[in-house]
């Protein structure tokens, strides 16, 4: 080795000879890059999560494809036509293939200047996302209304020297053996002293069941985008409720002048034609509640998404139907998805919920015009629900 070789290392504290084998600056800055990506993804979650079958989908993670961040410099605009110098046997007038375009049809733009397109696929746990959001928006955690009808469960708790053979904890027992013998040199022989058995304890748990009804107006006036907005909103509502309820059931009901129950997969595909009679939807929800859910044992939530136009002749029926549900439900919410027309709840259905709220029921409404509003809506409902809850519990 050259005598002066470590002077380039420049690390404090002398023996810098091989520091680079222990530490990678590249990896450190790479991690920082990924961290920044995560931060920026966090800010655009509603749009990102809007697509896909996510509500009851088996996976609890979202995969988000992202471009690498660019550190920006002043650059000239891409010209229509650019000159360059190359090398090879060609004649003037020859037309050449752009090698950067041969990579595949999906590839966009010439690679040379843009450093090629590298996409990262980041995986986010939905639970993490929801935790961030709740933290960031300082949303209250919901409390279950219905008193605990007890449910018990066996939970692991500690070890004992005696127990059933099947509960022998081998790892733990081996540790005991090592502790006793000092070193694991020769063939270990266990004594009864070493054996440890897992213990179980009975733990009481409140049986909390909740059901969320998602009622969607699919009449002709609801556009594709409106439905997608509603879907995004519903998704986050489910996530919020799941934070509190370990078993949350979801029911999907769509209505035009009639109402039907759907599976989730079908639900967002449904599109109807014709008018809007909201009372049919409420009646259907009521019917399902009566049939399957006992309001005394179960927390009921209703979220209704519509563009707000209800048939005038239906006003009285709708009011009645909704009030009936509101009596049983922990909370009823209404989102008005009227992309384009921002009427801000000054609609038939809007008034219905406003009156309900004025009458002291746990109800809330929000106008949803854009994907950026989804957070606002989620925040609105969960804080409204939080308030209603505080008011309800002395």
């Amino acid at each position, binding site marked *: 080795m050259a005598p002066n070789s470590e002077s*380039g290392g420049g690390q404090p504290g002398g023996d810098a000879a091989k520091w680079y084998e222990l530490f990678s600056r590249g990896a450190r*800055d790479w991690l920082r*890059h990924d961290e920044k990506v995560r931060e920026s993804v966090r800010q655009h979650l509603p749009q990102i999560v809007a697509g896909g079958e996510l509500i009851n989908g088996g996976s609890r993670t979202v995969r988000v494809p992202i471009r690498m961040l660019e550190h920006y410099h002043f650059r000239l605009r891409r010209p*229509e036509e650019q*000159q360059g110098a190359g090398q*090879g046997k060609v004649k*003037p007038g020859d037309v*050449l293939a*752009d090698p950067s375009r041969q990579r595949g049809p999906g590839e966009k733009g010439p690679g040379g200047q843009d450093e090629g397109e590298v996409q990262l696929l980041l995986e986010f746990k939905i639970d993490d996302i929801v935790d961030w959001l709740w933290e960031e928006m300082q949303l209250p955690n919901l409390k279950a209304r219905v008193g605990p009808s007890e449910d018990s469960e066996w939970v692991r708790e500690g070890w004992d020297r005696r127990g059933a053979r099947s509960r022998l904890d081998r790892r733990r027992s081996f540790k005991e053996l090592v502790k006793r013998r000092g070193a694991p040199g020769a063939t270990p022989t266990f004594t009864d002293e070493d054996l440890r058995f897992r213990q179980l304890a009975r733990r009481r748990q409140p049986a909390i069941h909740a059901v969320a009804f998602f009622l969607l107006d699919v009449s002709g006036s609801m556009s594709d985008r409106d439905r997608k907005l509603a879907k995004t909103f519903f998704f986050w509502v489910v996530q919020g409720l799941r934070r509190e309820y370990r078993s949350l059931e979801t029911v999907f009901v769509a209505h035009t002048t009639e109402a039907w129950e759907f599976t989730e997969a079908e639900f967002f595909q449904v599109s109807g034609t014709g008018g809007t009679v909201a009372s049919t939807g409420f009646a259907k929800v009521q019917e399902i509640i009566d049939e399957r859910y006992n309001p005394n044992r179960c927390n009921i939530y209703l979220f209704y998404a519509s563009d707000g136009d209800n048939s005038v002749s239906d006003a009285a029926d709708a009011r009645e139907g909704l009030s009936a549900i509101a009596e049983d439900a922990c909370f009823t919410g209404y989102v008005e998805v009227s992309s384009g027309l921002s009427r801000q709840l000054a609609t038939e259905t809007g008034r219905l919920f406003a009156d309900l709220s004025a009458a002291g029921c746990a109800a809330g409404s929000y106008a949803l015009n854009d994907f950026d509003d989804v957070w606002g809506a989620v925040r609105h409902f969960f804080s409204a629900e939080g308030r209603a809850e505080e008011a309800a519990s002395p």
Partner: protein
Amino acid sequence: MTDNTWQSYTRRIEELAARSGLKFHPVDFEAVPDTFMMEIAVYGLPVRMPHWSFGVRYIYQLIQRHMGHSRLFEVVFPGNPGHAYLASSNGLAENILVTAHVLGHADFSRNNLLFQRCQEQVSEHIVEHAANHARQIQQAIETHGLQRVEAVLDAALALEQHIDVDQSLRRTRYPEYVEDKKSLEEDGFRKRFAQLDPAAASTGVEHKKRAPIPPHSERDLLWFVAQYAPEMESWERDIFLAVREESFYFYPVFATQIMNEGWASYWHARLLREAEFVPQQAYLDAIKCHSDVVRPVAADQQVALSINPYHLGFAMWEKIVEKEGLEAARNIMIQDDDFAFVRNHLTRELAEELNLFRYSARNDGQIKVLEPDLTALHEAVLGPKYNFGAPTVSAKHVRNDGTLELVHDYTLDARGLDLERSRKVLDYLQRVWRRPVQLTTTNQAGLALELTAP
């Protein structure tokens, strides 16, 4: 161990190089793992400040390496002594070649005037300086937090090409006052007035005028921001000046790449030919390695849309030495940078011999070979090298409210800036300038356009 074997050749190659007329500072050779080689390539210096953008480059480099595209044999840093890092995966033949190559670089960086001038500024210890900067910034992160330091680095590194190497690295602030020329002039009236009452005449004229900032458009943006940002803290200014110092080091490397790589390649080939002490097999392997390095086009291609600087420089130096002799070649090496080198010595015959051509690439992907035109070919080769490869943006004025006005000289660059990117740079800059920042450039239609942040 291979390590010892190539070390035993180093001395003899150095002696041979010195006998052949190369004049270089001693070089410390160090064999380092490939992973570290890769980091040196990414950061440009063995130890350099942390920033996430290096992480991005690191990922690209990893991908490239994965695809087997790039293999680094050596990285050398000029200085006294110089530092050369060799990949520990190099074989004996590669290391012999690389040693000779490094000595070519060492000769170049010691004698080339542009290198000399910049080295006078940044001293011959850039490697140590950069490591110091890194430590300084690490301390800043500990004191002020990552977010704040990163905001400063975002801005400083975004402007890293915007320096003025014609000015001193340690340049002083502008004079604060303009000399009031009028008061110095003795006109007839003032003379007669002074005769009337000498006391009154001497008092009234002593008024100085504050100079505008900047007094002329300033293209050294890193320096200007560090000196004149209204509310920057001193540690933030230090970061700007640290980045600027490193840019002063990088400039000659950038502006003489063709010459420098060509010179080193010329000498590794020549020294190898003359080194009788190298065993036959190692010589053959080394020559094969040489031809891979100076290959004009990638193995699987017929035509390249870019020119390999190693190849071009190597071919040009061979031609110059053949025609004008080694002494003339040395003089050219001392005096030129790539601009002069290419314009003066890339001749029509050589361009034809090397099959160099000019093409135009349209946005829709069509690429067409153009008629040969030597001057235009020079410009096509040199085009990406002007102004450190960056658009000409300069600081023009600071308003009374602290607003910074930047101007892009779009007549010089022939087209406007990429607006999206420029806006982001303004955002970075605004965070350290802490007052509005404005930039004038031109839009697609050629009309002047103002961007502002915030």
